[in-house]
């Protein structure tokens, strides 16, 4: 098995997700322009596309982060409520050089965790009761390190931004295609003495809108999967103990039950998909990478780090 340092993992995942985000932005701009061109005003189309995305991003950046906590029914805890969990979070915030996030517990037997917050100083980490009951301290630390990495890498902000752009693309394409169908049925073809160039632009815009409708969500899920791998690798940078996170992921996959209360919109926040942790991941429309791949990558990194003393004794 080849070894791979977390530095390489982090750099590769960061490059790739930036590329994908760039591509989503490009599609949004191009779609605005082409749809605009089809109705004769490219700049108006672009203006609408950018405005749509901008407004939603502004709203979500101010209110979005607390929604995930509300959705999961998480309660905030302090040090005295659960010293070990609180300490583990504090340890990871020190390792990452980040401000201490708020700590939340979700009363559910399912094992899961997520991080949220638009900036590191307003962030929060939530874990389920099941996670606290079934993981040892090392494994819990690995999971918290993964979440701390989401915070450090500004993943909440990135994922919400991408989701909004993709949402805008879908909305625009949908509106345009519907508008065209309606106009088409009204027998607009009768007055069709317009030039060939306009028809070509119209067809191009139609094809583009259809393609964008299919591809944009795919890109969103690809970004989500990349950010998960990135958080796994960054977690290793914090704990220097990849096997613990690998063990935790195994438990979260093979010994877990679904966390049904989690809303569909928030699935990509969690460390494993709360709806179906067992069969989780891999497809083009999956929020998470296949668990086997995540574990394999962690094991490759594990070869670089010897086990801590205490663990060897057992």
């Amino acid at each position, binding site marked *: 098995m080849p070894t791979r340092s977390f530095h390489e993992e982090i750099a590769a995942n960061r490059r790739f997700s930036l590329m994908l985000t760039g591509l989503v932005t490009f599609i949004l701009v191009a779609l605005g322009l082409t749809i605009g061109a089809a109705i004769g005003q490219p700049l108006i189309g672009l203006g609408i596309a950018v405005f749509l995305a901008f407004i939603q991003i502004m709203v979500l950046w101010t209110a979005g982060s607390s929604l995930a906590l509300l959705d999961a029914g998480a309660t905030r805890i302090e040090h005295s409520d659960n*010293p*070990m969990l609180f*300490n*583990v979070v*504090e*340890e*990871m915030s*020190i*390792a*990452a*050089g980040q401000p201490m996030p708020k700590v939340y517990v979700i009363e559910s037997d399912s094992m899961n965790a997520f991080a949220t917050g638009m900036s590191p100083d307003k962030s929060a980490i939530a874990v389920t009761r099941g996670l*606290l009951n079934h993981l*040892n*301290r*090392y494994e819990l*630390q690995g999971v918290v390190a993964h979440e701390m990495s989401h915070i450090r890498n500004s993943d909440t902000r990135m994922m919400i931004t991408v989701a909004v752009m993709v949402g805008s693309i879908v909305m625009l394409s949908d509106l345009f295609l519907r508008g065209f169908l309606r106009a088409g049925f009204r027998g607009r073809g009768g007055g069709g003495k317009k030039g060939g160039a306009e028809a070509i632009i119209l067809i191009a815009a139609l094809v583009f809108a259809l393609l964008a409708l299919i591809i944009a969500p795919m890109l969103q899920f690809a970004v989500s999967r990349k950010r998960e791998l990135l958080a796994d690798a960054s977690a290793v940078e*914090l*704990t*220097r*103990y990849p096997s613990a996170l690998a063990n935790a992921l195994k438990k979260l996959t093979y010994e877990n039950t679904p966390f049904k209360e989690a809303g569909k919109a928030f699935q990509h926040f969690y460390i494993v998909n709360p709806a179906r942790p067992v069969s989780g991941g891999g497809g083009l429309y999956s929020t998470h990478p296949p668990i086997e791949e995540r574990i394999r990558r962690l094991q490759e990194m594990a070869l670089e*780090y*010897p086990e*801590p*003393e*205490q*663990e060897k004794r057992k």
Partner: protein
Amino acid sequence: MESWVILVIVAGLVIVLLLWFFGTYNGLVSLRNQVKNAWSQIDVQLKRRHDLIPNLVEACKGYMKFEQSTLEKVIQARNMAMSAQGVEQSAKAENMLTGALKSLFALVESYPDLKAQQNVGQLMEELASTENKISFARQFYNDSVMRYNTRIQQIPANIVAGMGNFTAEEFFEVESAEERIAPKVDLNIG
């Protein structure tokens, strides 16, 4: 007319150069401050360790009648660490304290009644976590030093670093490679 164009180009270049200089300089300042801050974080955790130790020793005293020497060693190492002067001496003393604490932790493991006591369990968790925090703070300090040192050595930032007296910071050395790996203490509480 031509001289006017040249003047604008030169002025533009100077402005760009100045902006780059300020940007790089400020970047270096914040990296250096991060190193300083990371260092003081280690001190915060070391201080917390010193504060916690007497409580744990007090709680263990009654149970460990036959292990007084281990407890005394911990107290001794703590007092030495607190009175140590200078970076080198205190690093040495803190390492001794880490060793003494490890043997105390191992000892507590062999007294299940003691560990089951709520306040002892809590103190152990706090101290164990503080041990982890110390090594994570050191790890972050070294990461920060590496980022800073790399930056001041790279072209062209090294020019700015030379002009602004940015000198390389020292890494926190640990005796063995094993020492670098955190966490070192696992209590398996809960």
